[in-house]
């Protein structure tokens, strides 16, 4: 079943990896004590590991080819996940089931689990917000975390200096972030895709560096502590209760966001975004103001990041610049792409996987980020369109009975 040629190939691959990883993985030097440590066992593991993996990958490829061949014979069927999303009769019960699960989560699981789930849900919102920018409008934003930081510091600082409460700052933080989005977007949205990417990345770094270095303003790298949790009609809530409270708050925000994003996608504006992603020149020729439409998407995305930022500050009661690194932007972007660009369900699944996975991978402790990076690569290689590859529900016209009747002259 498995030809010798393939075994030879795998042997070569394993040799290659043994060579590749030799200096970094095998040799360890201590320049002060002048000791060299040769860790030959590592080379052995790598050789075996890459040999086995390459065989597995090959087997997968062969299987996949066969499956694809078979698929061509039978009529192309829509993947299961997509059928569910397309059909309201599946989607609604599923959504209700998720909602019930979401609402009862704090009763079913521990405070610790609830806390993790809250984080995951926050990323769902961040993902949905960035999805407007990247997935729907097609603008590659690598500095999304800047707006998240603006939200978080808005709450921290406004509370510190002016004693403003959570509920007042929540919209304010969002608006501040959106305003900053407009300020940044105005000059840079004319740039083509990858230039926009690096400029937004740079912008994200600028915000972080300012927070880190302008100590009089932001208290520098040590951050701001003792940020109050949100109150509920002036009642102070116990620690465990507070976590549950924030959980529900975030859950509400998730529902609100899904509602809004869904409505936006099926609106005049949403259509314009999609059209802009498909053909900018045709769009302009059809009278769509490119800059304005992009700017709206960009600042809306920023608004959501700002909202989540405020909640983040309230949840952790502490903010410092280290929470807003590029890695954060990369994770949020990965959520959008991994889930399936432009798809709400995809983003939700992506966020849950990418945020819960590392949490539950804690067993892997220090290998966690290594595994995270590998998962990103592997997922992209095997599912480049994301888990829920864009199923856009286009507007379906059903109005006129003439569709069947009336024939064209």
């Amino acid at each position, binding site marked *: 079943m498995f030809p010798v040629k393939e075994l030879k190939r795998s042997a070569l691959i394993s040799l290659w990896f043994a060579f590749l990883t030799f200096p970094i993985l095998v040799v360890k030097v201590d320049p002060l004590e002048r000791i060299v440590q040769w860790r030959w066992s590592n080379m052995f593991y790598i050789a075996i590991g890459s040999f086995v993996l390459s065989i597995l990958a090959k087997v997968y490829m062969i299987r996949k080819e066969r499956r694809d061949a078979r698929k061509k014979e039978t009529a192309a069927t829509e993947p299961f996940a997509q059928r569910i999303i397309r059909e309201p009769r599946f989607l609604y019960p599923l959504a209700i089931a998720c909602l019930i699960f979401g609402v009862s989560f704090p009763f079913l699981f521990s405070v610790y689990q609830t806390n993790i789930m809250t984080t995951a849900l926050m990323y769902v919102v961040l993902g949905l917000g960035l999805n407007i920018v990247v997935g729907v409008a097609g603008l590659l934003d690598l500095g999304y975390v800047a707006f998240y930081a603006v939200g978080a510091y808005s709450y921290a600082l406004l509370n510190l200096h002016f004693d403003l409460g959570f509920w007042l700052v929540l919209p304010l933080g969002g608006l501040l972030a959106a305003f900053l989005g407009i300020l940044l977007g105005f000059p840079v949205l004319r740039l083509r895709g990858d230039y926009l990417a690096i400029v937004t990345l740079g912008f994200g770094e600028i915000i972080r560096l300012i927070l880190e270095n302008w100590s009089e303003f932001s208290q520098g790298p040590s951050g701001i502590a003792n940020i109050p949790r949100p109150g509920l009609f002036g009642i102070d809530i116990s620690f465990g209760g507070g976590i549950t409270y924030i959980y529900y708050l975030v859950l509400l925000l998730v529902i609100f966001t899904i509602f*809004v994003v869904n*409505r*936006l996608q099926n*609106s*005049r*504006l*949403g*259509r*314009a975004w*999609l*059209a802009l992603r*498909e*053909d900018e*020149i*045709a*769009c*302009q*020729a*059809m*009278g*769509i*103001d*490119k800059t304005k439409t992009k700017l*709206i998407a960009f600042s*809306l995305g920023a608004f959501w990041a700002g909202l989540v930022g405020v909640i983040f500050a309230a949840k952790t009661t502490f903010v410092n610049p280290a929470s807003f690194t590029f890695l954060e932007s990369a994770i949020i972007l990965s959520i959008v792409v991994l889930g399936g660009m432009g798809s709400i369900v995809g983003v939700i699944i992506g966020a849950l996987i990418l945020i819960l996975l590392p949490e539950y991978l804690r067993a892997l402790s220090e290998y966690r980020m290594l595994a995270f990076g590998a998962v990103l690569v592997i997922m992209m290689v095997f599912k480049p369109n994301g888990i829920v590859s864009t199923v*856009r529900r*286009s*507007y*379906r*016209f059903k*109005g*006129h009975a*003439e*569709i069947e009747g*009336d024939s*064209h002259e």
Partner: protein
Amino acid sequence: MNDAPVILSVEGLSKNFGGIQAIDSVDLDIRKGEIVALIGPNGAGKTTFFNCLTGIYTPSSGDVYLSNPESGKKTRLNGKKPNKITEIGMARTFQNIRLFPTMSALENVMIGRHCRTNALILGAIFRGPATRREEEGIVDSSYQLLKKVGLHKQVNEQARNLSYGAQRRLEIGRALATEPFLLLLDEPAAGMNPKETEALVALIRQICEEGHSILLIEHDMKLVMSLSDRIVVMDYGKKIAQGTPEEVRSNPAVIKAYLGEDVDA
């Protein structure tokens, strides 16, 4: 001979790309209700001329004015963005079809309605009565336009799955959705079979009768001769002739441009 108001007036329009003089000081007037054809060999600069009119390229020199036939308001188009120009009332189709491929036929036309409608973020979120009415209006008028261009049976079809001829007609429908008083068509019959072309001629006539003026680029001489009130001929970026179909047909310069040699007239 024609005293309808001038709606488009082009004065000394030139465009060069590096060394190439793609358009060389072209003048042109179009009056309300006219169908004007712009013809010329490949590479003559016709498409570039359209691109300069619609703001996709910036002209190197010269002026373009567009006057609304209803209000008589005259606007200088130089330096205006393409979307502004469409808003003023000039829309176009593309020689290399540029539909939104994964959007349905109806949605493509709905995009054309964008500049005549208003709902923004709040409208989208709250979807109040005004927004709902507007959306219904968009769908309705878009459907009517699809019907006009004969695509109402493919409402929900993705644009990329339509036949070539249907895509060209969809582009016309989409352009009409912006309510232009002047419609620019870039080779609308390219790739169509004779039957489709015939339907297209009827469609263009109908559009003109409904009050849109038309400037069209076309290589199909039969179509051009039967449709146009006036023909403008370009070669190497220059306007070399203009006049009624009869005048142009017998113009030696035109024959030379097309056949590449002197022909005794």
